[in-house]
């Protein structure tokens, strides 16, 4: 094995070469707490939609177009003004980011605003 190969192997083993695993469940809880703090009626819905847009790296207009929903509907979802049943199927189809059972089990935070 050449010195270059040994160095490459050492770099691959080094901790800095590894990626930090995501903890999306915790991130969702944090986002839901923030949404609840802003008065969202459905904070888990808000957290889930914000997380999905964040993973996509889109701004709101781009994401609304990507999902195929009007911008104002996306805004209502992100503001937690829509119940879990209103989440578009295109978002529910995304795997590995959001635990939809957790979202669906989330009670409304308070009376409708």
């Amino acid at each position, binding site marked *: 094995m050449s010195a270059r190969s040994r160095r490459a192997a050492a770099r691959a083993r080094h901790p800095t070469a590894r990626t930090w695993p995501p903890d999306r469940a915790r991130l969702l809880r944090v986002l839901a707490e923030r949404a609840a703090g802003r008065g969202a009626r459905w904070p888990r819905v808000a957290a889930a939609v914000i*997380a999905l847009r964040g993973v996509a*790296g889109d701004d*709101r207009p781009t994401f609304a177009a990507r999902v195929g929903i009007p911008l104002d509907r996306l805004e209502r979802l992100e503001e937690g003004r829509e119940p879990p049943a209103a989440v578009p199927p295109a978002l529910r189809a995304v795997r590995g980011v959001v635990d939809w059972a957790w979202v669906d089990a989330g009670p409304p935070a308070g009376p409708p605003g």
Partner: protein
Amino acid sequence: MDGQGCDGDLAEIMARMAEGDDAAMVTLYERYRTPIAGAVQRELRHRGVRLGRDEVGGLVIDVCLELRSIAGAWSPEGGATPWVWARHRIGNLVDRVVGQHAAALDEARLAAVEAPEPAVGAADDRSLVDALARVAPDLESARLVAEALEAARLSPRDRELVLEYAYEKQAGNPAPATTVAAQLGMKEATVRQAFRRAVQRLRRLAAEDERFAPLAELPLLA
């Protein structure tokens, strides 16, 4: 994406965070959590504290929230990534968690001590050289680096410079010389030259002395 450097992607994310977009904070987390975790772990190392992955993971999210709150003050023009630029803030977040792990104050012992001696320990590490010296007895790679700095006859200033420069580089700072120059009160060109010379001496040492050969495998000499 490894999060190295202040690219346009990072600048755009920070700009959206400054506008109050929580989704941008998620994007930051998704794309840059690894170097942010590195910044958190550096602060922990400076304090001589080890936390579990779960606690570090929580801190990484806390850092993203913190960066969101101060995103408007960051500029890509400065050359430092947000987590390097805001490292004192990160240190404060770490202190909040580490404080929860501190042993209870021994009031009886405290009362018995009239003139407390200077504390010895991780919290007193003023520099990476101090931190290296402290962990060297228990960590073979750290001991090897410490001995190599000695064997290469680097001055105390150059030892500090080499470690700081190497850390900044590994942490994703695209302009390590700028940061280290500010820390040590030197010119950037001098920092770069001193680092280059010091690394050359360490490489020579690794090539000529079998005991130091493993140094060549470390990112420090890459």
